Every structure is written in C-alpha cells, then in structure tokens.
C-alpha cells in the first residue's frame, strides 16, 4: 500500500471527519491490514497521525490570528472545549498562550538570525525534501549495490585482479545508474547509500525484492544476474578467524581486546587533487608513474576509476541538458543549464569556479562512497579546500557571499541527508601559527545553524584562533542543541601527531573521520577503529590471576600471581599494567594477523592518497605516506576509579582483603551498602582530584609506551586513541562488577568522560580532570562528551563558556563535545518519541536522533551528569 498516498489523502481531507473504516476501504484494504501497514511506515497509528496532522494545521491557523472557535469548527472538532483539550495535550498550553509564546519565539529567532542569511526558498524546499521524502530514496536505493556487484563479478569472471574488479564495479555504477536530480538542486549527484537495501540484502526474488528492482528500473537480465551471484565475494574474514589463538578468541568474545583491520570507509581523501587536476590530470599522472614503475593491475584499476569519474560527470551533464530543453519554468531551466555547464567541466577537468569546485568535490566523494559505502567516509577541511575558489569568484565579481552560502547549504543537504557520519571540519591553524579561519568557516557555521539537521561538524581551534570564532561556534552549539559542532584543540593534536613522526606541515592539516578519528587528509591510512580494548578488564584478570571474572572459563589474561602475593598497592598496580599490556598485545596481534591475511584493495582511495600512485602500492598495502593503526583505549575512567577504591578500602583502611573484594564483585554487590560506600567514599575521575585523575593519566601514558613496544614487535605503527565509540554498552555488558560501584553488565564510561553521574564538582573540575590526561601522546585524540544544561549556552553566558573552553584548552583539554539537553526532556522523549522526532543527542563522536537509540543507550545518556550554571 502506498502509505504516502494515504498521507496525501489525509492532507487533502483534513478538515473533514476521517473514518478509519472508510479510508481503509477506499484504499482497498482490510482495517487490520491497513493499520499495520500504516504503522510500519509511519511509526504511529493512523488515528494518531490524523490527530497530529490536524492539530498542527490548526496551530498554524491560530498563529495566523484566527479565533479559537473558528479554527475548532474548521477542523471538525465537536466542541471548542474538545479542541482546547487536544491542543493542550499536544502543545502543553492553550491556543491563546501558544500564540503569545510563538510571538516571543519569533522575535527571538529574528534577533538571533539577523546577522545570518536566511535559507532561500530553494534550500527550504530541498531541506524538506531531504528530511521528509524517504519515499524518493527507495527508488534508487539498490543501484549502487546491484551495479557494483555486477561489474565486479564480470571482472572476476574475466580473470581480472580484485583491485581491477572493484574499479570495474564502480565504473559499472557510473555507466548504468539513474542520474537523480531534484528540481532546484545546484549541486547534483546521488550516492545511493541510504537504507537497508543499499547494502547487501535485497530479498532474493520474493515480492519485496522484485518491487525494489522494479522501482529502481533494474532490467530483467541484470536482476537475474544479481540474484545468481555467488555470495562468497562478501566474506573475507573466516580465514582470519581460523588463524587466531585461543586467548585472542577469548579476548574477542568478551570484548576485552578486539583487533581488526577493516581499513574501509573511514577516510578523508585528497579531494583537492580532483578539484585542481580533474580526473583527466590524474589519469596523466598515473600514466607517468606507470611508465616509470611498470604496468600493473594497481595502475589499470586507477585508470578505470578516472574513466568512471568522466562517466559520472557526463551522465549528469546529459541529464541536465535534457531537462533544460524540456523544462518550462525559466528559473529551473537556468538551474539545469548551470548544472550542465558544471558537469561538462568537472570532475573530468579542473574546477574553474566555486560552484564547479563544490560539484567536483561532491562527485569525488560519491565515487569514494561507491568503493566501500558511506559509513564514515568524510570530507575534511571544507572551508580550506573551497576558499581559494570562493575568493577568486568574489574578487572577480561573479559570486556574492549570499550565493556562496546557498551553495554550501545545497552541498550540506546532500551530505547530511539521512546518511551516516560524513564529517567535515572548519577553522584551524596554519603551519606558520596563524589562524586558518576564513569567511567560509563562518558561513558554514551559519549553514549548520540554519539547516538545523547537521549531525557532524567539527571545529578546530588553537591559541591563534580568534575568540570571536570560537564564541560563534559555541553559540551554534547552544542554538542548534544537537551537539554540533564539536571541538578539537590544534595545539595538542599537532604535538601528538608530530610525536608520531608526522611532519609539522602535514600535522597542521589534520582533520577528523566520522566521529573523532584523526587523519591527515589525502596522505594517511589511519585504519580507524581497528583495535578496540576495554582496559577495565585488566583488573578482572588480576583478581582472577589471568581468568575473566565474567567468563571464568576464559583465561584471557596473564598470570600475575595469587592475590595474597599482591600485598601492596604498588604490586597490584604493576599487575594491572601487566594485564593492560596483555590486552593491548592480544589486540595488536589480531590486527597484525588480519593485516597479513588479506589486503582488501582500495583503488579509489589509492588514487587520492599521497604515496600510492608514486610507489605503485595499494592504500591498504602500506602505500600511503602515513600508515598507522588506531587502537582505542576504553574503560580508563572506570579502571582509575576502581583502583582508587581498592587503594582506600584494601590497602589504606584495610576494610576488605583482596579475596573479599573479589567475592563482592563476583557476586555483583550482594550488599547495596557496600556498593554505595565504594561510590561515595573514594575519589572519582572527573572531579579534579589528583589521587584518581593521575591514575587515569598514568594508565594512558603507560599504554602509549606499550603501544610503542608493540610497534616494534609487529612492525606496524599504532596510535593510541582513548575513545569507545558507542561500544561502552557492549564492553559493559561483558564486564563483571567493578570496584568503582559499576554493576555487572552496566555500561562503562564513554571514552574519557567521567563515569556517568560520578562527576559533581562542576564543569571546570571535569575539564581539569580530562586535561590531566596525556593527550599530547594520544594521536588518535581523546574524546569527551560533556552534558550541559541549555541555559549554559544562552547569550549572556557565551563569553564565559568561551573563556572556560580556552582556559581548559591551555591546560591540556584536547577534544570536547557538548550535549545540550536536560534530563527531563530526554525522559519525556523516551515516553513520547513522536513529539521529539527531530531531537538529536550526542551519542559518541556523532549525534543521532534520540528516537533511534536503544533504550539502553538512551538511559546511558540520561544518566550522565548535567552541568548547569551556578
């Protein structure tokens, strides 16, 4: 049933009484079937939807100034009282009050947006289309999947190498896809990545699968071929699993140390190169190196990809020209002509204008996402990449600032359509120490605020950054209230990166992938989220003399002696460090095995990463100038808190012996009084207390030393990254109760944020605690989310918040993300998800719609301490 048609029907007949029975019959369905279909699609019942829709339209009339009585009867409410009641339920106030509030709100918005360009009608329409027309996606969602698979399979059958097969797959998409253009778009191109069916699963030949293929206009021959493909192409991990030792498998199963070598879809490539040279220029560069290094599959694949780039541009150019001829509306005709002109030039040839630069960048990005899906493939320093083109056009007088703003909005609507985490970054510091903030940096913040649905934007700042810029970025945090943008401290990051052997010049160019993972754009393969550890497990292994407390059959840890031998705190701490090293070793060895077992070729990433063309090596075969592996260090706050508790209760006060403590943990705190006293009577990370903060700092410091040793052992470069992503839930689920008062199975702390609810000395104390960690050694960045009360970010407090951030950064704070919501709102949203559809919260290195989180994750976020103004 086309639910969309039902919605349109409701919209057209909203002023009438709508009966479920009649409408179900009208669309030819039984009542039950109709209700189910509708609910599956809309996430609410049909009657709820009608109520919702009706009251929203009524509210608009109320705002227009119509009387309550008129509106009530216009929308078929039986009585004014009934209307008032419905209104109260939905909006929490009566219509009259609503009008007053709306007026205040309007004035507020007018004030706050005065200095910004408003969204143009074009952007409003495109934004609405991107946010609300999920239907449109279904029409194209399988194209990448089907054509890529077909192109790749044909190449494999022809006996080509894997890297060529991937390139052929991408070329096939570019040649066969439907060019999707939404009227009004100034930047075109679609990466067909959204939705379940964009990945592997397209139901084989059953009605749903067939309907999808029909919708996507996939030919009968192609769909049969697709369904006939051997699925073996997708599985590459089984052989690696077979090579793992028992300990490695245990570490993996209890989420203590997981090593992968996925090296996929976590990149920021050198898109500037496409802007500057075009694929045509790159093709010539490849041919040049081929002549020197000799012909190879690597070079052949990259050359195929250049041709895929040509095809992509030409396909859209042709479509735009076709539409320009038939379009009757003059302004749309002009849009199509502009798009056609741009696509005739880029990405094949160098971009000559700002619009072409944006278009070229978007095409270059699409090709990257076709290689291994969208996921976290990111853009990088957008303001820096585009500024030369912007400035040239403005100087020539062919572009106004306002037009530039509109084009940014058009690109961002593409980038943040319900897609995954495609990060971009603004601001930063130049290698000569000056601020890199430019006019586009501000325009991009404006676009973020105006579009109000951006999920990933980072801001780089340092000692040279104008306070005005930082203040504006913090203002956007407060206005948007979705946890964007987030903040990275250049002064520390550059130091950390140069310590890892990255040149100073390149270190200043760093940016983020997806969440917070550090990358040198176009020059590095960071192998983000390669190794994932839960260091809290180290304590379990000490108490179990190598055995896990959660899974007693597993002897994942090292033998660090009977508990009776650990008669001083120093001995215990040494044992913990031994286990930390063990966990890191198990993780790094898995990484090494994965790396050796197979090299998943990435021809496109190779083409746009410095080193790969020159050396003739693949991106995943250490071709990049900087090739390193990020090892995530999780559970540090919990481990530090736990050690502080043991120090006090076991070694200083002698309240419990180690075996007694172990018994308490194994039994998951049978006496709640004990748990409470562990929470309350020993210092906790996040309160600016050296006793515990320095333990956390030392653990990270020692882990960095260990990773340096691992680098020698395994011949790979490892970057420490105290970041948990959202796996703090999984790590917690597989961890026994810990002395910090965490119950068995409860989530561990997010990254280096204090354990949720255990920080109570205010914002400055949290920052001081985090600033004590050796961020200058963790090149993968530390990550921290601070929960802040919305009032903290109101206009009168912004100067102070800016000062706090600057002061904390000088002290050593490296990264921070703010979540601006109050617990009441979140709890309310948990109960009534339908009322908070656009409420987004900071989950990990990205923001997500609150409704889409699991209840477990929702509770985790509610449990974090809120920092209000004092």
């Amino acid at each position, binding site marked *: 049933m086309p639910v969309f048609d039902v919605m349109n029907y409701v919209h057209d007949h909203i002023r009438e009484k709508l009966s479920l029975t009649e409408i179900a019959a009208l669309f030819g369905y039984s009542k039950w079937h109709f209700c189910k279909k509708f609910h599956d699609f809309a996430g609410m019942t049909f009657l709820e939807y009608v109520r919702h829709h009706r009251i929203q339209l009524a509210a608009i009339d109320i705002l227009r100034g119509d009387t309550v009585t008129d509106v009530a009867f216009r929308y078929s409410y039986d009585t004014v009282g009934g209307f008032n009641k419905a209104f109260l339920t939905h909006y929490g106030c009566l219509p009259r009050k609503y009008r007053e509030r709306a007026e205040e709100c309007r004035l507020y918005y007018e004030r706050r947006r005065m200095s910004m360009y408003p969204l143009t009608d074009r952007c409003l329409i495109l934004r609405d289309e991107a946010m609300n027309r999920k239907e449109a996606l279904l029409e194209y969602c399988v194209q990448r999947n089907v054509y890529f698979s077909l192109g790749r399979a044909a190449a494999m059958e022809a006996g080509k190498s894997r890297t060529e097969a991937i390139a052929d797959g991408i070329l096939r998409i570019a040649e066969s896809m439907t060019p999707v253009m939404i009227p009004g778009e100034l930047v075109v191109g679609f990466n067909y990545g959204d939705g379940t069916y964009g990945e592997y699963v397209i139901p084989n030949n059953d009605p749903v699968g067939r309907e999808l293929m029909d919708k996507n206009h996939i030919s009968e021959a192609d769909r049969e071929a697709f369904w006939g493909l051997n699925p073996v192409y997708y599985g590459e991990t089984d052989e690696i699993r077979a090579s793992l030792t028992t300990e490695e498998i245990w570490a993996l199963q209890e989420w203590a140390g997981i090593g992968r070598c996925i090296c996929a879809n976590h990149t920021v490539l050198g898109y500037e190169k496409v802007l500057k040279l075009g694929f045509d220029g790159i093709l010539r560069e490849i041919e040049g190196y081929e002549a020197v290094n000799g012909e190879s599959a690597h070079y052949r694949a990259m050359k195929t990809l250049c041709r895929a780039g040509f095809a992509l541009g030409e396909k859209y150019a042709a479509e735009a020209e076709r539409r320009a001829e038939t379009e009757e509306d003059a302004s749309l005709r002009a849009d199509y002509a502009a798009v056609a002109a741009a696509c005739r030039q880029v990405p094949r040839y160098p971009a000559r204008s700002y619009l072409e630069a944006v278009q070229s960048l978007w095409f270059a990005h699409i090709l990257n996402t076709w290689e291994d899906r969208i996921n976290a493939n990111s853009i990088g320093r957008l303001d820096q990449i585009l500024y030369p083109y912007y400035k040239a056009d403005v100087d020539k007088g062919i572009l106004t600032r306002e037009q530039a703003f509109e084009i940014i909005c058009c690109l961002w609507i593409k980038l943040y359509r319900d897609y995954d985490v495609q990060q971009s970054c603004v601001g930063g510091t130049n290698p000569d120490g000056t601020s890199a903030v430019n006019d586009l940096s501000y325009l991009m913040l404006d676009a973020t605020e105006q579009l109000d649905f951006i999920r990933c934007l980072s801001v780089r700042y340092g000692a040279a950054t104008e306070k005005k810029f930082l203040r504006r970025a913090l203002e956007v945090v407060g206005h948007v209230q979705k946890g964007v943008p987030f903040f990275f401290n250049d002064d520390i990051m550059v130091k950390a990166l140069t310590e890892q052997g990255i040149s100073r010049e390149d270190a200043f160019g760093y940016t983020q992938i997806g969440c917070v993972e550090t990358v040198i754009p176009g020059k590095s393969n960071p192998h983000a989220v390669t190794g994932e550890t839960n260091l809290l497990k180290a304590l379990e292994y000490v108490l179990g003399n190598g055995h896990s407390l959660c899974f007693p059959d597993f002897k994942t840890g090292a033998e660090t002696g009977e508990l009776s031998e650990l008669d001083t705190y120093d001995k215990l701490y040494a044992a913990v460090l031994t286990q930390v090293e063990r966990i890191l070793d198990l993780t790094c060895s898995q990484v090494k095995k994965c790396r050796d077992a197979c090299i998943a070729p990435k021809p496109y990433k190779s083409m746009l990463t410095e080193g790969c063309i020159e050396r003739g090596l693949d991106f995943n075969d250490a071709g990049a100038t900087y090739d390193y592996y990020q090892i995530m260090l999780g559970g540090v706050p919990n481990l530090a808190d736990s050690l502080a508790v043991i120090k006090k209760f076991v070694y200083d006060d002698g309240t419990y012996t180690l075996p007694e403590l172990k018994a308490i943990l194994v039994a998951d705190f049978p006496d*709640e*009084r*004990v*748990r*409470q*006293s562990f929470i*309350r009577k020993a210092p906790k990370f996040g309160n*600016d207390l050296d006793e515990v903060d320095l333990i956390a700092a030392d653990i990270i410091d020692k882990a960095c030393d260990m990773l340096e040793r691992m680098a020698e052992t395994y011949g790979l470069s490892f970057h420490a990254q105290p970041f948990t992503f959202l796996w703090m839930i999984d790590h917690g689920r597989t961890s026994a109760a810990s002395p910090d008062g965490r119950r068995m199975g409860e989530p561990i702390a997010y990254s280096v944020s204090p354990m949720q609810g255990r920080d109570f*000395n*205010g*914002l*400055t*104390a949290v920052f*001081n605690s985090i600033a004590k960690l050796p961020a200058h050694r963790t090149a993968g960045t530390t990550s921290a989310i601070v929960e802040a009360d919305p009032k903290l970010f109101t206009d*009168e*407090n912004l*100067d*102070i918040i800016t*000062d*706090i951030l*600057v*002061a*904390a950064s*000088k*002290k050593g704070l490296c990264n921070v993300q703010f979540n601006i919501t109050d617990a009441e709102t979140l709890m309310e949203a948990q109960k009534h998800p339908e009322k908070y559809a656009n409420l987004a919260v900071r989950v990990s290195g990205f923001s997500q719609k609150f409704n889409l989180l699991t209840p477990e994750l929702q509770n985790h976020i509610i449990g974090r301490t809120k920092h209000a*103004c*004092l």
Partner: protein
Amino acid sequence: MSLTALISHISRGSFHDGAGIRTVVYFMGCGLRCRWCHNPETFSQKPLIMHLPAKCMHCGSCVEVCPDRHVVEGDRLTLLREGCTLCGSCTEICPTGALTLCGEFMTVEQVLAMIRKDRHYYDESGGGVTLSGGECLLQDKFCAELLEQCKEEGIHTAIETALFVPPPSVESVLPFVDHVFADVKLPDGERHRQWTGQDNTLILSNLARVIASGVSVTVRIPLIPSVNDSLEDMDAFASLLSRVGASDVELLRYNYMAEGKYDAVGIPYVSFGKGTQSDRTMAALAQRLSEGAEGLTVHYR
C-alpha cells in the same frame, strides 16, 4: 595551630557571583535569620547533620551505630537532633550520603589549594574568588588572611556579606577586597527586625562606611514576594540607597526551591510562594528603583 574556618562547601565554576568564572566559598554562621534564606545550613556556627531522605536506602546502618538518635518508622527515618553530639558515626557509616556532616574546619592553605585549581579559568575570564555564606565576616581574621593571600597571588577577590558584623570586622578585610556584594533586605528597621530577627542600623552604617571607603560595591536586594517587592518598596529602597551613596544595585528573584534544604537540616520552612517574579515584574521594579535614585544602575537576571 594555624587559623581555621568552618566552611559549608566550596562551589567551583560559578558565573553569577562576580566577574568571570569564580570559586565561591560558603562560610557557616550568620547573625541574621532571614525567613527566606536559601542557605539555612549556614545558620549554625558549628557543623550539623544534613538528612536527605531521597538518598536513603533504608538499610538501618545509622540505627545500628546510634539507636538513640535515629528512629525508623516504616520507610521513614527521623533524626533526633536534640542531644546529638555530632560524633559523626552515622554520617560515616551511611553508605549513600543520605546523612552527611555539613561543615568542615579548613585552614587557609586548604581553601587556597581549592581556589588555585581554577586559576587558569580566572585568568582567562577575569574571574576569581568570592567569599559568601552564611556571613563570611563572622570569621573575619580568616577571611582577611585568605583574601590577602589571594591578592598576593593576583587573584581577583570579592565578598558577599549582609554586613551584620562589628565595624572592625568589615574594615579588617577591605584592604584585600576588589568587590563587595552587600545585601540589603528591608529599608525599614522594624520590619527588618520582624523578618530577619535583627534591626538594620548596624548594617546601614556598615554599608555607608564600605561605600565611603571607595571599594567597588554592588548592593543586592533579594526580592521576597509580598515582603519587599512592591513598587512602594522600591521607592523606599531608592531613598535609602541614595542616602548611603550606592551606585550599583542588583535585584535578585525569590528562590522558591529551598524547602528541601530546610527539611534536610530540620528547620521549619516558610514559603513565600511557589514561583518567582516574572520578567515583567522585574523590569517594572528595576525601572521604579532606578527612577527613584539618581545615578543608580539597576540590574537583574
């Protein structure tokens, strides 16, 4: 033995008690008993037990260690404060912090150590330390020493005081204070006695003295519904403030959320309403006040 003071708590990262980011030190003990005070735990000049029923898990530990002073009926714990020696055994054993001891004797060095932790935030924002309470000047020797030390280290200093202390106490700290927040509750002496337990003569003469000394002063008026928040009250405040030469006034909204704290310290609570003054009321009061006295800057939040 070095000088100590009884401190109820130290609050960091405060925005609203002076310029920039501040650390606020709350001293215990006060000569006034303002019926609306939202820090009743600071009335006493000795430590006291705070009881927060919401945190209680009904484990009975306190009854075990001190059966005479703790009575449990159903799921309700009653604390018998009469005769309590503040031995601390119940607060020590209480696992959840439902029973805590409020008030700690701290040395100047201990308080300074806390203040220094946020030094970099003061430097960035022009903030510093604010001594508050209770009445901090009841422990004037300590305050003078602490403030002098802060000045020596280049930390901005402020005090918040009701000025109900002997004049020499005020004078002893003034050389080390950058800014004074002086509370004025009611212009009329008799009503002042009725609502705070004391006459305001001493307060007003201290205020005049402080202003005359040339230190920067903000007069703070806590607005209490139906006690001192009428337009007529503003007129009376205006004439009083011009008499003492005040130039800067801050109106504070009524804090209606102190009931929990009163319960926690076992002092009967008097409510002046379940809400606070609206923006509109505040604007009207501020305007009336500024019209009544020449050269008076009035602000409110």
